[in-house]
């Protein structure tokens, strides 16, 4: 048996902007054990819930993550609305779904770009981010913010989209679909990419289930776990199937995200065709009294917001379980046995968002 050495990875690493620290135990060049450490960007956002009114806390909930910001606020307000028993207008549900899927598009494009950059594929990185810019422009035109949208509120949404703008968005997405085909072709069919990714960092289906993997990490291992199928927002009126790949390697996780781009476009198209007219918000009085587990599907997987109120303006407890947090145990498993040089690529495939995981 050769001598074991420990190599620290992160929290500052060129390929990973997120402050995740991994102690890699190596035998020769092979990783035999991994000890993850988080806690570099803890901000104590959950405690703030005692200091702010529940209606204002939406903006803080949105700032838990800088990428999947909108879906955090959507999850939070869904929980509040469930506790208070509010039936929010149909149009607001559809608008939330549209913005949520736009967030997913921009997050996946960001990830595809970062992933290409992590592999050393600079031109694909630039192309992915150029396409992401169109998505961000549409978000800015409809909500006023590019990433932090700030449109969710308890009882509906704060902005409406005109039918002309919806048509324009749909035309833009249709035009983009062909460019996305070209982009995802590179990830799915290019020889050098598949040579680098196939068979690397395999997470078996049983392991994924036992360790609680969520999102594309779970779906890449053959588990059809997608909280969108539970029908929150307008998803109960939308026809869609979760994207599942069977292999469980880096290529499968990459393919799930690449194919989800087209699912998201399809969902947005269905929403725009079905969206009813009517108001987008309702008047909310009183304060939440009770508790609720609110679950939604983020680009990285399932997020859970636990909300507890006691009938006063300030909530008693707010707890967030983010997808990256649950994806760290699967990450430890799938890192075992890979070469040191492949570690950055494997870490990137779970799409770590540590700012989210630590709140």
């Amino acid at each position: 048996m050769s001598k074991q050495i420990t190599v620290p990875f992160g929290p500052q690493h060129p390929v990973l902007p997120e402050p995740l620290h991994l102690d890699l135990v190596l035998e020769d060049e092979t990783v035999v054990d991994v000890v993850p450490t988080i806690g570099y960007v803890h901000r104590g956002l959950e405690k703030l819930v005692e200091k702010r009114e529940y209606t204002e806390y939406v903006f803080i909930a949105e700032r838990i993550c800088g990428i999947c910001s909108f879906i955090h606020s959507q999850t939070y307000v869904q929980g509040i609305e469930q506790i208070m028993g509010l039936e929010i207008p149909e149009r607001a549900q559809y608008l939330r779904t549209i913005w949520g899927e736009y967030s997913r598009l921009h997050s996946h494009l960001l990830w595809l770009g970062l992933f290409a950059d992590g592999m050393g594929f600079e031109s694909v990185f630039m192309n992915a981010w150029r396409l992401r810019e169109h998505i961000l422009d549409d978000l800015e035109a409809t909500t006023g913010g590019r990433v932090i949208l700030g449109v969710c509120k308890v009882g509906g949404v704060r902005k409406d989209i005109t039918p002309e703008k919806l048509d324009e968005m749909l035309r833009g997405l249709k035009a983009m679909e062909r460019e996305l085909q070209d982009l995802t072709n590179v990830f799915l069919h290019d020889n050098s990419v598949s040579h680098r990714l196939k068979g690397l960092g395999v997470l078996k289906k049983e392991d994924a289930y036992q360790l609680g993997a969520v999102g594309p990490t779970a779906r890449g291992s053959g588990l059809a776990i997608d909280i969108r199928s539970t029908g929150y927002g307008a998803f109960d009126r939308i026809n869609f199937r979760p994207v599942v790949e069977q292999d469980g390697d880096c290529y499968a996780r990459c393919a799930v995200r690449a194919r989800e781009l087209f699912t998201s476009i399809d969902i947005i198209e269905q929403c725009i065709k079905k969206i009813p007219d009517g108001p987008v918000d309702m008047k909310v009085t009183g304060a939440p009294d009770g508790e609720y587990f609110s679950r939604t599907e983020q680009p990285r997987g399932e997020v859970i917001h636990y909300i507890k109120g006691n009938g006063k303006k300030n909530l008693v407890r707010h707890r967030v379980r983010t997808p990256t947090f649950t994806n760290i145990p699967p990450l430890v498993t799938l890192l075992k046995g890979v070469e040191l040089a492949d570690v950055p690529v494997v870490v990137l495939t779970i799409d770590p968002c540590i700012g989210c995981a630590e709140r």
Partner: protein
Amino acid sequence: MTFFQNTRTVLKSLFSRPSTLMYPAKPAKKTENTRGHVTINPAGCITCRTCQRKCPTQAIVVDVKEKTWQIDNMRCVVCAVCVDTCPTKCLAMDTQYRPAMTARGGVEKFTVAGPKKKEPAAAPADGVKPKEPKE
């Protein structure tokens, strides 16, 4: 993947204009919905303190006695709640971002008209306005 599949993308990138803007030589793209920064019309403010109570980051301080409205731009997250809740609509959202500033330079103080109906105060000006409305 066969050869020359990406040629279309390559040719398109080769013969099209750059996707990036030469910022700040060219102004950044802004839409009418863009949340840039909060502006106030001091003549319309009745110092009701709704914006101060609703501000999630406590960036706004309204002094009823002194009749001043103060915003700390380093705290402000440009969520536009104050603009939505202002009863007299004297707050507005500008589409342009603020230029870079230091923590000390972020605080802006305006002397406002106050609650009573009277002749409108002087035209809104940038920065500190020391002039008190006549009582």
